């Protein structure tokens, strides 16, 4: 059963003003940039200092006051998953990020939620706990990653034939997660343990726009270490 496409069809070249309020080390922010780059949508990027949020950011996202926020011709859209669907529905050129089929769309949304509400949430626990609590969080995130591994097994992309919504949401695995575990001095995620995810990563790296959204490793390691040190001293 096909769900009719009933949105406006915009392509590059229309009078568009697209801005992204983001943060270079945020996987949520990088997702939005990746989607825009894949669609060939030019945008102005505004780097936010999260310790000193700009008045503009607060104006565009008064409820959560967080990045990323997409501002399209003055209209603000916060929350990365909401933004991704907005991008796909507004600019209907390739790559189409979400399938036309309602069941496939439901599966894609399910996995995006799983990534955000389970994997990334548990990863936060891994970063900000120690001892037994951290051990437990590491076990939990390993099990969650195994479920994701199973989902990409035998596929070139999560969505099937080309890069799509779930691949973009899972982009945190390409650079961000590896950097984080190195900074933490742990080894949850390896080619040996997750061969299919690693194979998927290799395919992702072949896409220019994915590489353009690379989080620079050394800068990222320093950033994480600074944040962890600040957190530790704050919790003493």
């Amino acid at each position: 059963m096909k769900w009719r496409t009933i949105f406006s069809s915009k392509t590059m070249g229309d009078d568009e003003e697209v801005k992204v309020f983001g943060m270079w080390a945020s996987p949520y922010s990088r997702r939005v940039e990746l989607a825009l780059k894949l669609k060939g949508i030019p945008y102005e990027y505004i780097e936010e200092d999260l310790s000193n949020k700009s008045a503009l950011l607060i104006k565009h996202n008064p409820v959560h006051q967080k990045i990323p926020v997409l501002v399209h011709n003055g209209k603000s859209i916060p929350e990365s998953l909401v933004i991704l669907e907005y991008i796909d529905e507004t600019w209907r050129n390739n790559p189409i990020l979400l399938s036309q089929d309602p069941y496939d769309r439901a599966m894609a949304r399910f996995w995006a939620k799983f990534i955000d509400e389970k994997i990334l949430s548990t990863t936060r626990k891994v970063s900000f706990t120690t001892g037994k609590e951290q051990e437990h969080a590491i076990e939990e995130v390993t099990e969650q990653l195994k479920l994701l591994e199973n989902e990409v097994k035998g596929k070139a992309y999560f969505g099937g034939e080309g890069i799509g919504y779930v691949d973009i949401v899972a982009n945190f695995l390409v650079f961000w997660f590896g950097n984080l575990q190195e900074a933490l001095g742990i080894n949850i995620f390896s080619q040996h343990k997750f061969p299919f995810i690693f194979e998927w990563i290799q395919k992702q790296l072949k896409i220019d726009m994915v590489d353009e959204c690379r989080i620079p490793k050394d800068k990222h390691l320093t950033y994480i270490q600074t944040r962890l040190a600040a957190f530790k001293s704050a919790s003493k």
Partner: protein
Amino acid sequence: MADEDVVLLDFWPSPFGMRVRIALAEKEIKYEYKEEDLRNKSDLLLKMNPIHKKIPVLIHNGKPVCESLVQVQYIDEIWPHKSPLLPTDPYQRAIARFWGDFVDKKIYGLESRKVWSTKGEEQEAAKKEFIECLKLLEGELGNKAYFGGENLGYVDVVLVPFYSWFYAYEKCGNFSIETECPKLIAWAKRCMEKDSVSKSLPDQDKIYDYVLHLKKVFGIE
């Protein structure tokens, strides 16, 4: 439409389940409702939602869809002609999804549970945040009859099940939601005038009894 086989695995007090009941009722879809005992989950539930093992699970022609916000969107897309829940404009859709996400994080989240499951300072802090979040929703509703405009929309379906829990929250937290958020209560009562909503929500006294039972089970005063 060809013969559709629709099954809903659910648990009567679950506001997540209520969302799906309302969406199916709005679309006038006949379905089989199966009540789950969460202390003794059925093989069907475990097979259809192996990852989370939770209700609600919507099974459409044998294929499972999990997570209530995903289910409501799926229902809206499979049966688009009757009572459309999401608007057609991409920006309006984004606003609706944003508020749906807000409801999940702030109204249905773990923090809001503290309104009934804690006491003292912790409870007061939870009540304050809960009311602030409801007021933000009131602001979003504005002067509209429903979040969806003139008819029930996605955000209405996502939020209104919680109305059945308000009485329990008020009794446990010793406060009046209507005093704090009269417009929101007026909206909820307006939604309850619709069969699709009133027949999908359990009686608020039953929910209060259930909350008291939960408190006993978890050893909460």
